[in-house]
C-alpha cells in the first residue's frame, strides 16, 4: 500500500499511508474512535467515496484513483481473495446461521469444501454449533459477531480484515473472540484486526500499528504492564 489517501465527499480521512502486510502475518491496528481505522479497511475493499494512491494485492492493482461508484468494485476485490468482517453485524438476519456461514464461501473451491470449513469454524466458535438451524436474526450480540467473523473465515482468502471485533461486546466475550481469532491457523493468509483497545491485542499479534488522525504510526509495541482491556466507551 503506497501513498494511499481516501475519504468521503469533502472529507479526507486517510492521509498518505504506506505499509505492507506480509503473508502469514497477524497485524493489529489500534486507534481511537474516528481516527480512520474503519476507513482504512473500507479503502482496501473500495468502499470509500474516493481514493488516491496505489493499493497492490498479490501483485495486482486493486486501488487507484476513484471518485464514484461506491462499492462497485468491492465484490471483485473480495473475490480476488480478501475476506472482510465489517464493523457491527452485517449478517443476513433472515437466513439461518448455517446459510450465513455458507454465504461466506464465495469462491468455487471454498463452496465445494464448505462443510469442512464450517466444521473448522465451529471448532473455534463452539456456541454456534447448537444454533446452526436457527435464524441469525434471533441471536445475541456476541453470537452475531461470531457469525459475522466466522463468515469471513469461511473464505479461503489471502487477507482477512476484521473490523472492531469487540465493539459493543462485554469484555469477557470480546477477549474470548479475539483469542479465538488469534488461534486460527491461517496458512499463508494474513489478518488485519482493527481495535480500539491496545491491551486486547497486545501479545496476541505479530505487529501492532497505531493509527491517529488518519496517519499511521509504525509498531506501537506491546502494552505495558498486566492490565485487563478496558470496557467500551
Amino acid at each position, binding site marked *: 500500500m503506497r501513498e494511499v489517501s481516501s475519504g468521503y465527499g469533502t472529507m479526507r480521512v486517510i492521509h498518505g499511508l504506506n505499509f505492507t502486510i506480509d503473508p502469514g502475518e497477524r497485524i493489529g491496528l489500534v486507534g481511537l474512535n474516528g481516527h480512520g481505522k474503519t476507513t482504512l479497511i473500507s479503502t482496501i*475493499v473500495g*468502499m470509500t467515496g474516493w481514493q488516491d494512491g496505489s493499493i497492490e494485492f498479490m501483485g495486482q492493482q486493486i486501488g487507484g484513483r476513484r471518485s464514484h*461508484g*461506491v*462499492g*462497485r468494485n*468491492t*465484490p*471483485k476485490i*473480495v*473475490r480476488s481473495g480478501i475476506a*472482510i468482517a*465489517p464493523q457491527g453485524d*452485517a*449478517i*443476513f*438476519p*433472515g*437466513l439461518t446461521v448455517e*446459510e450465513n456461514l*455458507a*454465504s*461466506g464461501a*464465495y*469462491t468455487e473451491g471454498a*463452496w465445494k469444501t464448505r462443510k469442512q470449513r464450517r466444521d473448522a469454524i465451529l471448532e473455534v466458535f463452539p456456541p454456534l454449533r447448537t444454533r446452526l438451524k436457527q435464524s441469525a*436474526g434471533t441471536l445475541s450480540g456476541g453470537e452475531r459477531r461470531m457469525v459475522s467473523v466466522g*463468515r*469471513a473465515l469461511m*473464505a479461503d482468502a489471502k487477507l482477512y480484515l476484521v473490523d472492531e471485533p469487540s465493539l459493543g461486546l462485554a469484555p469477557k466475550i470480546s477477549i474470548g473472540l479475539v483469542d479465538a481469532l488469534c488461534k486460527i491457523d491461517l496458512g499463508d493468509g494474513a489478518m488485519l484486526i482493527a481495535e480500539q483497545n491496545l491491551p486486547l491485542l497486545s501479545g496476541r499479534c505479530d505487529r501492532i500499528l497505531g493509527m491517529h488522525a488518519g496517519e499511521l504510526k509504525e509498531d506501537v509495541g506491546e502494552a505495558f504492564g498486566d492490565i485487563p482491556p478496558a470496557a467500551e466507551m
Partner: protein
Amino acid sequence: MIELIASGLVLASMYGLVAVGISLTWSSVGMLNLAQGFVFTFGGYVAFLFAQYMAKNFSIRDGVLLSLGVVLLGMIGSAIAGLIVGGLAFLPLHDRVNFPVRGLIATLAISIMGTQIFMLIFGPQSKPLPQIFGIKRLKIGEFSIAYGQVGTIVVATVVLLIVTLWMRRSRRGLQMRAMMMNPLGANMVGVSVRTTGMIALAISGALAGLASVLLGQIFFVSPTSGVQPLIVGLIISLAGGLGSMPGTVLAAVLLGFAEAVTARYTEQSFVPFVQFALVIAILTFKPRGLGGVLEDVRE
C-alpha cells in the same frame, strides 16, 4: 367440480408465474418492475415470430418440438426483455438517491415505449400462438379437462418448484437471498449487486415469458396484452407480501379460485369486485401481505 378446480388452478398458475417474478425482482433488486407487462408481451411476440417462421419455412404447425420451441423461445425472449429493463432502469440507477421511486418511474417509461414500439412493428391486431398442448380433452370419470389446462398447471407448478429449489439450494440462490436481506453485507461477501440483480431480472422475465406463452393459448398476443397480467400480478404479489415466494403462491391460488368461483356462480363482471374485496381484506389484517416478513427484517 373438477372443472372448477381446474380453471381455478389454471388462473392461479398464470397469476403465480407473473406475481412470483414481480415479487422476486422487488425483493432482490429493490425495484418495483412495472415494465413486467412489456417483458410479458415481448416473450409472447418472440414465440409468435418463431411459430410463424416455422410455419412458413418448414410448414410445421404443431407437434412436440414446436411446442417445446415456443415455450423455450418465449422464456428466452422474456428473459432478454428482463435484461433490457435491467440495463435501462436498474444498472444506471441502483446506487443513486431515491432509487425505488426513480426505478419505478423508469420502468413505467419503458413500458410506455414498449407498447408503442410493439404497435409500430406488429400493429394493433392480436396474434395467435399455436396450441402447444393440443386441443384434446382428458376424461376422468364423467368429467373432462382440456389438455391445455392440465399442461398449464403442470408446467407452472414444475417451473415454480424448480425456481424455489434453486433459490434454496444453489450458491446463486443463496447469494440472491443474502442480497434480499442486506445488500451492503452481500457486497462485502463478494456478491455483486449488479450481476445478481440482472440474473434476478432475467429469471423473473423468463417466468413472465412462460406465463405469456401459456396465456397466449387463450387470449392471443397483442401490444397491450401485458397490462392485465401486470395489474393482477402486482396485486397478487402485494397481497402475498412482496418478497415472499410461499405467500405469493398462496395469494395466487386464493385469487385464482376466487375468480373461478365468482365467474362460475355469478357474472364475469363481479370478478374484479371480489378480487379487490379479498385483497383489501388481506391487507387490512396483514398490511405486509400473507408472507410479509422481509420488510421488517430489512429495516
